[in-house]
């Protein structure tokens, strides 16, 4: 491991991966328990529309993609409240609209199409200092909103009871959606679509198999998300395979192992 960390790009990859992995695995417990496993993919692809708009406007894609994806997240939360559609159907609708908008924006600036797609498949091994600062900012946001964990958890289990107890459930939902959206869109640039979507689902789903309480599920998810970065990066170095894929495969292997063990028990 020390040999791996001799490379500065690996140091940055490990730091950014740990920060993003921990934050996304933390939000993942709400994503999984609320049955919104498709959200990560939905928001990440929605970011494509924002990136395309940024390219069209000759602006830094991230600064356009963040408000664009935030608007999509708010739209998804609003549509969920207003309709009886399943959450994955709502996400699918907004994903398709965002992607279509992205295609339209890019059609107006054809030569830059590759940039927009490349943006979605960011690589953890090419993390810059700016990326690292953004990852730190995401971590700080998650820490600052930690006191909301109990309210989000309560509304996740029993939304009606939380409303009867006069908690601002709707407002809390919007805050959670916006935090997840900001995390996804910023992390897409750092770790790519597949890895951020995996962080939002697999560690939480795996910890769900072990945990008896929601707090334990949260702690295990965060630890598992972080550990998968360490073992995934080490594995990718030694086996010479893509880093993001290696991290996801570590998560997937742990999930399948637990599924087998817990089922047998």
């Amino acid at each position: 491991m020390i040999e791996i960390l001799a490379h500065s790009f690996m140091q940055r990859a490990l730091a950014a991966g740990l920060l993003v992995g921990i934050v996304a695995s933390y939000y993942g417990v709400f994503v999984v328990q609320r049955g919104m496993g498709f959200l990560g993919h939905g928001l990440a692809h929605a970011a494509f529309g924002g990136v395309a708009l940024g390219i069209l406007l000759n602006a830094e894609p991230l600064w356009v993609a963040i408000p664009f994806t935030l608007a999509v997240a708010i739209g998804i939360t609003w549509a969920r409240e207003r309709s009886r559609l399943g959450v994955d159907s709502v996400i699918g609708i907004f994903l398709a609209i965002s992607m279509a908008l992205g295609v339209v924006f890019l059609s107006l600036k054809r030569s830059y199409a590759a940039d927009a797609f490349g943006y979605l498949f960011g690589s953890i091994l090419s993390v810059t200092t700016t990326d690292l600062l953004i990852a730190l900012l995401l971590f700080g946001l998650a820490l600052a909103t930690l006191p909301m964990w109990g309210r989000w958890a309560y509304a996740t289990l029993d939304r009606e009871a939380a409303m009867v107890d006069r908690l601002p459930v709707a407002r809390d939902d919007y805050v959670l959606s916006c935090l997840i959206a900001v995390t996804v869109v910023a992390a897409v640039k750092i770790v790519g679509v597949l890895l951020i979507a995996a962080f939002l689902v697999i560690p939480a789903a795996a910890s769900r198999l072990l945990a008896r309480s929601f707090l334990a599920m949260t702690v295990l998810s965060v630890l598992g998300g972080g550990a998968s970065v360490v073992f995934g990066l080490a594995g990718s170095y030694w086996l010479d395979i893509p880093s993001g894929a290696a991290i996801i495969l570590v998560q997937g292997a742990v999930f399948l192992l637990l599924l087998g063990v817990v089922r047998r028990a």
Partner: protein
Amino acid sequence: MSAIEAMHLSVRLGDRMALEDISFQVDEGEFVAVLGPNGAGKTTLVKIFLGLIFPSQGVARIFGDSVNRLSPEWLGYVPQVKTLDRHFPALAMELVGSGLRRCWPGWMSGEEKKTVIAALARVGAEHLAERALGRLSGGELQRVYLARGLIHRPRFILLDEPATGVDVAGQQDMYRILEDYRKETQATILMVTHDWGAAFHHATRAMLLNRRLISMGRPSEALEDEFLRCAFGHVGHAHEMRMVRHD
């Protein structure tokens, strides 16, 4: 002063009226069973008193004050057990603790644990404290819900079809706990139910709804055949219930 009061309540949901011009009063210490066919507006009525729905017209009051100004400690709510996500990783004591804290208790202090265990003990369920929600039977979960609903010793208790998904023994236990609590504290109970037997045997008054208030009074009077026909189109097994009540 009435414990709860509805004055000309009407609720429009989309293009249809869920409730039309409902007026009634319930005194402190009463146990009122609310009955009616599916779609009669029973749950809408409960949601008005929970502060989750605003009436299109009219006023709802609890202890003389508007619903949204009621201190949450005064209100105990017991929902249907089938609405709970049994796959949520939680222990029974955490569910009760959520009522105490009014948010999800990641960890509880020794004092909070004592309060929660005492609430569970009052409904004979202290042995369930460390059990996962997914491993509770319908009756056990209903007791845990009751413990949560009663943890602040509320003066007004709302129950929405609490017998659904609970076996007969569990239902009898629940009604006994509610009766004991009401006698001890003079709390007011409003219970939506499809269980006519519960209305005849446990309620001091019954209310028959079908978007409008059909009847309200002592169960044997409010559930007269003509009112039942008006609400349901038939009288079901009400006659046998009345006979059992007389016995």
